């Protein structure tokens, strides 16, 4: 099978991402992508430039296709709980490590769900933006950081409000808390396998594993705090470096 040019390959990747972040059905995306890809291959064999197939504006072409496809409600109903579970797992694991019991205010739970929704909308918005404008990988990376920062600030605010106000809520016993923890961890592993990325598990480990290990040492509180923070950043940094290297390698292989 003949290989697509780098430009066409990039367009096809962007088209798939654009349609996926527009909430379209995966099966339909695969079908239309296959058809356009086959057209691009034949066009390239006949010496036609990509513009002759998709026009001068890839964004307009992507919109045109997107407009003819229905919004896949079923798939979104599947993604949303997955992302929300991912978000709450950080807090649940933290509480379990600290005192083996889970206690939450209703405001914190409701707020977390709301913030997760905003996060999903922002992430998908950024995906659509970067896919339709063919931005560089570096710009794409910086754009994707925006939702992460917005998310961190909103969560920070929510946790601060929860800590300093007497809000109504509930508390679970040790056994019930542990069951919730194990179920959540199982779900996280499943999400990671499904999404083919270990980012959630790495982040969770980066935040909680150093703390757990340091607890077993005889170090002073301040040394523990600083070492904990450094180790967290080190793990996240190493993971980002590894991902970046992998991305570069994949790009080099494709080009």
């Amino acid at each position, binding site marked *: *099978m*003949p290989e697509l040019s780098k430009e066409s390959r990039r367009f096809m990747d962007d088209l798939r991402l654009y349609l996926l972040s527009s909430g379209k059905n995966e099966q339909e995306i695969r*079908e*239309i992508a*296959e*058809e*356009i*890809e*086959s*057209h691009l*291959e*034949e*066009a390239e*064999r006949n010496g*036609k430039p990509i*513009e*002759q*197939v*998709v*026009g*001068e504006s890839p964004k307009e*072409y992507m919109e*045109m*296709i997107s*407009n*003819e*496809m229905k919004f896949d409600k079923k798939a979104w109903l599947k993604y949303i709980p997955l992302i929300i579970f991912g978000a709450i797992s950080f807090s649940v694991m933290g509480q379990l490590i600290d005192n083996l019991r889970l206690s939450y205010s209703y405001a914190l739970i409701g707020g977390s769900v709301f913030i997760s929704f905003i996060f999903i909308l922002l992430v998908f918005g950024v995906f659509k933006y970067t896919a339709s404008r063919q931005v560089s990988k570096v710009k794409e990376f910086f754009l994707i950081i925006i939702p992460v920062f917005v998310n961190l600030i909103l969560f920070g605010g929510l946790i601060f409000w929860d800590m300093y106000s007497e809000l109504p809520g509930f508390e679970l016993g040790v056994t019930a808390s542990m069951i919730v923890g194990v179920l959540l961890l199982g779900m996280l592993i499943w999400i990671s396998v499904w999404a083919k990325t270990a980012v959630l598990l790495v982040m969770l480990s980066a935040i909680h594993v150093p703390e757990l290990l340091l607890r077993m040492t005889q170090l002073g509180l301040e040394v523990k705090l600083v070492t904990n923070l450094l180790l967290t950043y080190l793990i996240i940094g190493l993971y980002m470096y590894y991902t970046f290297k992998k991305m570069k390698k994949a790009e080099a292989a494709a080009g």
Partner: protein
Amino acid sequence: MSQTQMMKGILDGCLLAIIRGKEVYGYEMAERLSEYGFGEVSEGTIYPLLMRMQREGLVTSVKKASTAGPKRKYYSLTDKGHEELEAFLERWKRLEKSVNEAIRQETKEGSEGSA
């Protein structure tokens, strides 16, 4: 009706006419359109149109292996597609007649007026 919408309507009709003859796949349709003088229209424009026509039940498709490259999706007209093509041809004849008549009369009057 915007120019793009009008163009889409015309392309719909032309695609139905192309598909009526025999089973045909996307690239072939684009080539034919180009031969008929639709060179200004980017080739990929046909896919969203085909997608809609398939959803509306005007065309149906089947994937077939090809000797050069991946499987191709071949389209053919349904009964509803045939009816839609007939309706399009009727509309087009009326429109063509009206447009020709308007241009003929107006340019004639225009040239008489200026003379």
